[in-house]
């Protein structure tokens, strides 16, 4: 391992970032909560263990997250497959649409779900207050993670491997199970881990669609900390949540390491082709139908709501946003809101992509326990309650420089959540980069730096683009951290939506603002898509 010293040096940056903006605030707030007067609050843990409500919350948090993950993966795989392997009309539009749910504020999703799954449902079901509403919402939000996370590997796997297996007489299903699935395993597990963490710490969805019987640890931590001002109990629950997340991540780390092999990757332009048989066309149609039902229906409902006025369909709500007919400060100019949103999103993407990529290189270069621990710790922010991190910032970041009221904390908070996405989308690809390719380059006299720049980087950059897109989506849709230290003068689009939904009479304007958010997301997704397309030609 000649590369060891620079790996350690490289590891310093993500380690310092995570240490200062995650571990240190987390330890400080837990210490504040659990050791209030110099004495450890064992009673808080006792309370959790003995209270049947708390036990059922913990249990519900775990099983709904597992079930949400399984459902999302099962429904996401066929979609990832058709986008990776086939060219068909509307492919890039459809793929861009799947990212939109990811940025929608939960309040807005609540509106759409009530329309689709409530009493007036076009499907004739009323799922309000049931576990199904929560599970469907988690699938709705997280499908994009599987579609893109698995897709980025799938579209680069050489189809000739599968063709070879088929020519030896194996059926389609058997090829998938015995050839494709093992090859995809690292990416599937990566995506599943992200979906699990999101569902495990679900907050907004639960607040909007849950009820008294369906509450997660995340919601309970918030309730204890803010409604009852019980910091000890909130901290004890946060510890429980952290332990759960760590155990799951360790299991994930063990399983994913076992299979990380090296694949012969190919530029995707050679992989995707037009569907040829009736079966293929049917499969694509059915998968798009499923996506339409889960992803597109709620989006269409929101667009319809933004256009509907007492006198019929019109653009009144949009016009009102740009030129409010009534003087009230609740209207934020959409251009200002977009500007504010981007002001946070761009630094967030830069930080997340830079640090995530560095961390990814370190993880790939460090086989064994060190790399695994590093990987696990970097994933933890995604599985930690937002209240805990937010409160941690407040108690920890006043020294040596008081950053607590600084706007820089907003993109930093967004980056904390986004870094795992950059890592999870780049690491499987980096691990699969053929060693042979690198060795060949080395034999031909290339320095390790040249190998990285000329061999790894082009392949990894596609995966990095996916990670960056998620970072962008996380930042523009994020509400918690933004509302936490936001100022009226820096209201982002989600903050503007929250305000418009806060009182009677401005519902349509809130929907119009949400449609603007969806449009920006769609445009960004399509933009990155076309960028990836043109660049991959040179790989």
């Amino acid at each position, binding site marked *: 391992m000649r590369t060891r010293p*620079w790996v350690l040096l*490289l590891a310093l*940056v993500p380690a310092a*970032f995570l240490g200062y903006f995650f571990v240190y605030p987390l330890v400080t*707030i837990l210490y*504040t909560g659990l050791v209030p007067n110099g004495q450890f609050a064992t009673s808080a843990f006792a309370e959790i263990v003995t209270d049947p409500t708390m036990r059922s919350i913990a249990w519900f948090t775990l099983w709904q997250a597992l079930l949400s993950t399984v459902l999302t993966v099962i429904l996401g795989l066929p979609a990832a497959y058709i986008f990776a392997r086939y060219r068909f009309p509307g492919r890039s539009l459809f793929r861009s649409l799947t990212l939109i749910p990811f940025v929608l504020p939960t*309040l807005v999703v*609540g*509106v759409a779900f*009530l329309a689709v799954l*409530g*009493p007036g449902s076009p499907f004739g079901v009323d799922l309000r207050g049931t576990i199904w509403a929560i599970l469907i919402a988690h699938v709705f939000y997280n499908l994009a993670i599987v579609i893109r996370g698995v897709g980025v590997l799938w579209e680069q796997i050489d189809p000739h491997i599968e063709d070879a297996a088929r020519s030896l007489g194996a059926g389609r299903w058997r090829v998938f199970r015995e050839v494709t699935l093992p090859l995809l395993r690292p990416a599937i597990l990566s995506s599943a881990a992200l979906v699990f963490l999101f569902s495990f710490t679900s907050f907004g969805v639960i*607040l*909007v669609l849950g009820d*008294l019987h369906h509450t997660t640890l995340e919601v309970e931590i*918030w*309730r204890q*900390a*803010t*409604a*009852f*001002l019980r*910091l000890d109990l909130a901290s004890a629950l946060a510890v429980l949540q952290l332990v759960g997340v760590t155990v799951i991540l360790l299991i994930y780390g063990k399983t994913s390491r076992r299979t990380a092999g090296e694949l012969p990757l190919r530029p995707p332009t050679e992989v995707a082709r037009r569907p040829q048989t009736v079966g293929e066309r049917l499969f694509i149609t059915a998968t798009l139908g499923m996506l339409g039902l889960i992803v597109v229906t709620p989006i269409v409902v929101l667009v319809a709501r933004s256009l509907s006025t007492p006198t019929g369909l019109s653009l009144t709500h949009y016009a009102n946003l740009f030129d409010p*007919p*009534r*003087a*009230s*400060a*609740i209207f934020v100019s959409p251009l200002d809101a977009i500007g504010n949103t981007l002001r946070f999103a761009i*630094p967030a993407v830069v930080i997340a992509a*830079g640090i995530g990529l*560095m961390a990814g290189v370190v993880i790939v270069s460090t086989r064994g326990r060190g790399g695994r621990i590093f990987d696990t710790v970097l994933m933890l922010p995604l599985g930690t309650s937002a*209240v805990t991190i937010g*409160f941690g910032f*407040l*108690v920890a970041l*006043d020294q040596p420089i*008081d*950053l*607590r*009221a*600084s*706007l*820089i904390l907003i993109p930093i908070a967004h980056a904390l959540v986004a870094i795992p996405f950059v890592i999870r989308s780049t690491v499987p690809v980096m691990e699969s980069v053929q060693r042979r390719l690198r060795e060949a380059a080395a034999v031909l006299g290339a320095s390790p*730096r040249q190998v990285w720049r000329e061999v790894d980087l082009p392949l990894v950059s596609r995966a990095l683009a996916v990670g960056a897109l998620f970072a962008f989506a996380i930042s523009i849709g994020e509400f*918690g951290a933004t*509302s*936490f230290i936001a*100022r*009226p*003068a820096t209201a982002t689009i989600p*903050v503007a939506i929250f*305000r418009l*939904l*806060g*009182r*009677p*009479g*401005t*519902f349509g304007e809130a929907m119009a603002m949400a449609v603007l958010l969806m449009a920006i997301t769609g445009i960004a997704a399509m933009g990155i898509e076309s960028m990836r397309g043109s660049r991959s030609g040179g790989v």
Partner: protein
Amino acid sequence: MNRSLAGLLIAVIALVATGCSAGDTETEEIVLMTHGSFVVSDGVLEVFAEETGITVSVIQSADAGTMVSQAILTKDNPVADVLYGIDNTFLSRAIDEDLFLPHRAAAIDTVPESLRVQGDLVTPIDFGDVCLNLDPDRLESLGLESPDRLVDLADGAYRGTLVVEDPSTSSPGLAFLLATIATFGEDGTYPWQAYWRDLVTNDVRIVPGWDQAYYGEFSGGSGSGDRPIVVSYATSPVAEVYFGDLDAAPTTIVEDGCFRQVEYAGILNGTKAEATAGRLVDFLLEHTFQEDVPLSMFVFPANSDTSLPGVFVDHAVIPAGSILMDPAHIDENREQWLAEWATVVR
């Protein structure tokens, strides 16, 4: 590799440096901490800057409960100088934690006695009432009279008509629970728990937040649901008129069982600018800010000399018998009441 690493290190240092310079600006600054529903028109806080030469920087928390927890957590080194938006359901805890420095606001005599707090630890800035809102058209089509007392809703005739917010996740939800506790009492032949049992029998719908209740389940005004009775604010009909550009309110309120939420401002103990902070609290109670409050946040100004906008004069109702509960009593019992409520409705 080393070069790109150095580049990143420089970038990180630059980022941290930007953070620093954003923190200590040249002009003097005072920090106002408030909740997520705080809204103010452009130019209002600038008046304060013109008068004093000091800029007001506003930081917002998601909700009032989060804001109070944050203030308590940082009381040794507060993030802000003034806290605004704490209401009577959280006031007692904040006072027990010694969060505020006393300050007698210049315009305090314009504030009705009932809203004020002993010892001037905090200054009332605005108030609003949480009341049942009705959709009279829908009630009529169901063949029902508009109820005029809370107890009417326990009547089987009103089955399936009411939607309320969960008091453990929603501030109007908590206000309504407190209103029922004040109205029916904690013991006696028909205590609040019995009333809630009847509401459950009558198929009350409980949703997590105000917007789901009003926009999602309520049939009146801009709601798109099918329930004609909702827990909302006394000013909701005014907002319907204002934003909908209507001549008359499409909804009405029930004046019985309204709960008054008073929002206060206070100087945070530990501020390094007590005098300026006091000046800002004074400003919040002066006309410039007070006149902006109704149409920005749809609450009433605490300063009774404030002239109200026309739509408030024509359409707003201030319920005469609105319930004002002692903050200490709320704080002592909140956790237990919520636990009891949860067992009743489960």
